[in-house]
């Protein structure tokens, strides 16, 4: 009895944490401004939230076959989601998208001097 209660509590905590992580990731995807930042936010749901939800369901599984299928789902998603995220970032990079590295004021200041031939690299290297 006490073991079942502990399992229920643990699976409830895991399911709630997973749902919370997924909603937080969705809000982050809505709020972030860059494509690569949005990729970063989406991976929170696709690995963290997914693992929490699957672990929460795993503690409630009535049969061992259900547990095996849940582990299979978790393994598949853990293998495929980083691969598709990487492919998406790579395709966007090859298509000309660049991550936003510099701030706007710095960009305005460096373009105000006209062409800066090779001072940009050292300039950025000084940037933390």
């Amino acid at each position, binding site marked *: 009895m006490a073991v079942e209660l502990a399992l229920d509590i643990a699976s409830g905590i895991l399911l709630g944490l997973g749902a919370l992580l997924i909603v937080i990731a969705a809000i982050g995807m809505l709020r972030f401004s860059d494509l690569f930042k949005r990729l970063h936010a*989406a991976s929170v749901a696709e690995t963290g939230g997914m693992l929490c939800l699957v672990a929460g369901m795993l503690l409630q599984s009535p049969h061992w076959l259900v547990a095996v299928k849940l582990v299979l789902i978790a393994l598949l998603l853990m293998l495929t989601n980083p691969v598709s995220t990487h492919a998406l970032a790579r*395709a966007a990079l090859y298509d000309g998208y660049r991550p936003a590295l510099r701030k706007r004021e710095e960009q305005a200041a460096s373009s105000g001097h006209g062409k800066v031939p090779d001072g940009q690299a050292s300039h950025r290297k000084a940037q933390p």
Partner: protein
Amino acid sequence: MLFIPALAGLLVAGSIGLILAIKPSAQVYDRILALNFIGTLTVLFIAVIGFVFGRPEFLDIAVAYALINFIGTIAVLKYLKSTGETPAIESLADGGVVTGNTDGEESVTDASANGKVEGNSSNQRSVS
């Protein structure tokens, strides 16, 4: 048993992903990212709803959906653009085109740095 709040969280996150996918200012890769996100949430949704209704056969559908989601994302990315010349490291490090949100907050361009990468013409490709 927090299955119902987990379902609610998955639905909320999925609707936020749908907003991201159909937003008029979204670019192609934002839409693909939202599609992949919604697919992952759908896999989890099918698994959780199998537990709610007490029908563990739904987990097979979830496994199949995870595979189809991955194949679909990779196929669309391959169709768009993921091959060709690797961008040079200098052109990656030099900022090039900063493609932030299309609100114009961070969208500054550095015309002197994107010599090797493709120009600005392919950055604004959007499906409307």
